[in-house]
């Protein structure tokens, strides 16, 4: 999953303006707005908040909490583009391998100044084998010199390519030319860490009584399984522009329960259960939202010899199966939440990516079905010689619905019997990774806004290549894309090749479907990664 590629010109151009960038970076309340007297935002999270240690953060909801407690060099703005955080500006050398950041006069919540040394400490901490962070690899992924070797224990942490020139100047050296480095700085792994507190309190440093942060909020309460409460941090450098006084992250496991409590006014934002979006949109048009989300849902086909179903080794069968999936029914009939049918892998809204023409995408479903039947006949299967396939997915109502519907489509159109095996998530991961399945549910969310975050999964050497798909042309194209003047040429070729080989059957591109109280303003609807900052939000009087 290396991405030493050069990005699309447009994207790079946007980033080079970085030093002059003055986009929005706080709640922008229009003139004449009457703010609500109570500025408390209540946000529903699905699961527990796993940790408050920025270098250990793994999941999306936890990141949202940590983003309010800590701040990196750059934040992600309304549209997903970087806006200055602790850094005021940066300079970059000609081949884009050395970035020098100028830090502003920011303070920790205990009043200490935030220095370049705090970033050096945090980044070293992230790759330190003793910290044992799941995201240790992220520092190497974005290109910081020696990160991978330090993770592997081959070099000391002090060799990491990050240096404090003085208290307010941070220099980062990358192992490859990267125009998009600044985009990665809003990731929690690269947030600063308060050295003195961590060394004094050890593992307990994130407890409410100990924690010190540099974000717009400080921790008031952390009760896993119930809620995390954060309150305005008066020491935050841009505190004057913060409007929300308090944010409550409320754990509500059951999404239907979340909706009931949203209706009762107990939460300001909650997800819409699968299938309920049209009815809610009709009933509450001003509160119901569906925005694209940076993930792709797909079926993985096991391409290795570890599975014994010969039919799946026949590309005609794979193509027929993929064609016979009526994505419009899944999207409009089952999920009904503004998802988009997918015939290729990379999310269409990926910055700078232009989707190539995949033939199946422009056919009618009737044509696809006809072609599918024909392909199956050519492969020697039909209603008289039925095919049986085993499909694994993890326990969830939505996955179950998709599996059931696809199974019936294949049965009716192709005479294929799809045996469903519902397993629990960890078991699915293990089975998928061991490649002992035939067909498996899969999904991928982009780590950063560039096409290689998806396409590198098709590389035969990728750890994430659950399919065991190995095509030398694809590998060569992906390698070439890293030095290409316009990597989109290679990306398009990879997509086209994958659509011919069918190692995966893309089903749909995600949407985030949610209810939000009308009083909440400032939500970043146009950011496909949906990185929101509490400091950018405010509540108006109703």
């Amino acid at each position: 999953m290396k991405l030493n590629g050069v990005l699309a010109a447009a994207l790079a151009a946007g980033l080079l303006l970085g030093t002059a960038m003055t986009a929005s970076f706080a709640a922008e309340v229009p003139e004449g707005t009457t703010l609500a007297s109570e500025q408390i935002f209540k946000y529903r999270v699905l699961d527990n908040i796993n940790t408050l240690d920025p270098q250990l953060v793994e999941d999306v909801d936890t990141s949202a909490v940590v983003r309010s407690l800590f701040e990196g060099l750059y934040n992600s703005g309304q549209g997903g583009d970087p806006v200055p955080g602790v850094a005021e500006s940066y300079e970059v050398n000609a081949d884009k391998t050395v970035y020098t950041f100028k830090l502003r006069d920011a303070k920790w919540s205990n009043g200490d100044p935030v220095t370049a040394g705090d970033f050096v400490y945090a980044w070293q901490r992230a790759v330190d084998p003793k910290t044992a962070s799941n995201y240790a690899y992220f520092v190497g992924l974005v290109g910081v010199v020696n990160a991978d070797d330090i993770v592997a224990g081959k070099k000391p942490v002090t060799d990491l390519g990050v240096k404090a020139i003085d208290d307010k100047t941070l220099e980062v050296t990358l192992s490859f030319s990267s125009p998009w480095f600044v985009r990665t700085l809003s990731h929690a792994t690269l947030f600063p860490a308060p050295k003195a507190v961590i060394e004094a309190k050890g593992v307990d440093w994130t407890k409410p009584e100990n924690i010190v942060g540099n974000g717009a909020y400080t921790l008031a309460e952390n009760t896993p399984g119930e809620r995390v409460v954060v309150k305005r941090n008066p020491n935050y450098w841009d505190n004057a522009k913060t409007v929300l006084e308090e944010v409550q992250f409320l754990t509500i496991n059951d999404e239907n329960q979340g909706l009931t409590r949203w209706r009762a006014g107990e939460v300001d934002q909650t997800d819409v259960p699968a299938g309920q979006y049209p009815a809610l949109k009709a009933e509450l048009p001003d509160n119901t939202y569906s925005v694209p989300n940076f993930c792709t849902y797909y079926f993985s086909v096991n391409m290795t010899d570890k599975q014994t179903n010969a039919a799946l080794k026949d590309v005609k069968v794979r193509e027929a199966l993929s064609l016979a999936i009526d994505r419009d029914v899944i999207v409009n009939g089952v999920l009904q939440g503004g998802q988009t049918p997918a015939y290729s892998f990379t999310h269409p809204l990926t910055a700078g990516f232009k989707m190539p023409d995949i033939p199946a995408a422009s056919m009618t479903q009737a044509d696809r079905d006809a072609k599918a039947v024909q392909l199956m006949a050519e492969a020697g299967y039909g209603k008289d010689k039925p095919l049986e396939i085993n499909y694994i997915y993890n326990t969830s109502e939505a996955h179950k619905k998709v599996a059931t519907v696809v199974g019936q489509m294949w049965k009716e159109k192709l005479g294929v019997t799809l045996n469903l095996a519902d397993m629990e998530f960890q078991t699915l991961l293990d089975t998928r990774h061991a490649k002992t399945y035939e067909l498996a549910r899969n999904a991928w969310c982009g780590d950063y806004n560039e096409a290689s975050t998806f396409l590198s999964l098709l590389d035969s050497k990728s750890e994430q290549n659950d399919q065991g798909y190995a095509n030398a042309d694809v590998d060569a194209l992906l390698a070439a894309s890293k030095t290409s003047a316009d990597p989109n040429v290679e990306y398009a070729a990879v997509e086209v090749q994958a659509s011919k080989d069918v190692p995966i059957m893309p089903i749909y591109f995600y949407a985030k479907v949610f209810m939000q109280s009308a009083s909440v303003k400032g939500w970043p609807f146009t950011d496909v990664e949906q990185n929101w900052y509490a400091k950018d939000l405010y509540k108006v009087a109703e």
Partner: protein
Amino acid sequence: MIAFILKRLAVAIPTLLVLIVISFILMKVAPGNPFAGEKTVPKAVLDNIFARYGLDKPEWQQLLEYIYNVVFHFDFGPSFKYRDRTVNDIIAQGFPVTFTYGAWAFLFATVIGVSLGVAAALRQNGWIDHLAVGLSIGAQVVPNFVMAPVLVLVFTLWLRWLPGGGWDGGHWSNIVLPVIALATSYLASITRIMRSSMLEVLGSNYIRTARAKGLPGWQVVFRHALRPAMLPVVSYLGPVFVGMVTGSVVIDLYFSTGGIGQAFVNSALNRDYSTILGITILLGALTIAANLVVDVLYAWIDPKIKL
């Protein structure tokens, strides 16, 4: 009595050890690991994490070290999923919550159940009897995962009387719905047990004799009948208590109370080995303790029984 308790406690220790070993083996056999996610973690990173938690050591050594730490330091180790918390933290936070609503539910189910059962028995085949029997069977057959969302719809969304979830440090308004959802089916069982055992006692010879002697009705009931009639209820209380704890899986899920039940299910699903073990041991110890208390109580109520 003391000898009996000591004997039971002596058996409890090997029982708990067996429980630890069984759970440990089950966990290690289970596919997956606590650090796996939709995105595969690179091998070098995984190695570091395993080394950090001592998971790179041979399994028997992990087990022995775990038992050593539990027995001598009362340390259940760090949680693998909640990276900045220990299992002791998780239990210290979740158990009081579960215990609070569990204890209220226990009290509620026992007091109301016993009263209803006695009332029904005293007026056998009267309206109160039919009502009690009907209600109790009805309550027993509606699963609490249906009851909980219905309660929230009615009391939170329609009536707006009570919050639909959260704990808020144990505010009374957050306790009411969990207690009702948890207690109902046990209340029903206790009512039925109490009713039938009361009927049995009221029909026995010595109660008839007492009545024949002309003792007033209430005195017969409360002085002579209640105590023996309580016996089957008392023996049911152990399982009720355990049910209150396991029932917290549903309660925590629907009411976001942050109790121990959800912590267990989450840790089992996430393969958070140390948390699964910690909670299993805690529940095993509680079960043993509850059974012991029930036995002692039983002997106290029924003097014929010698411990």
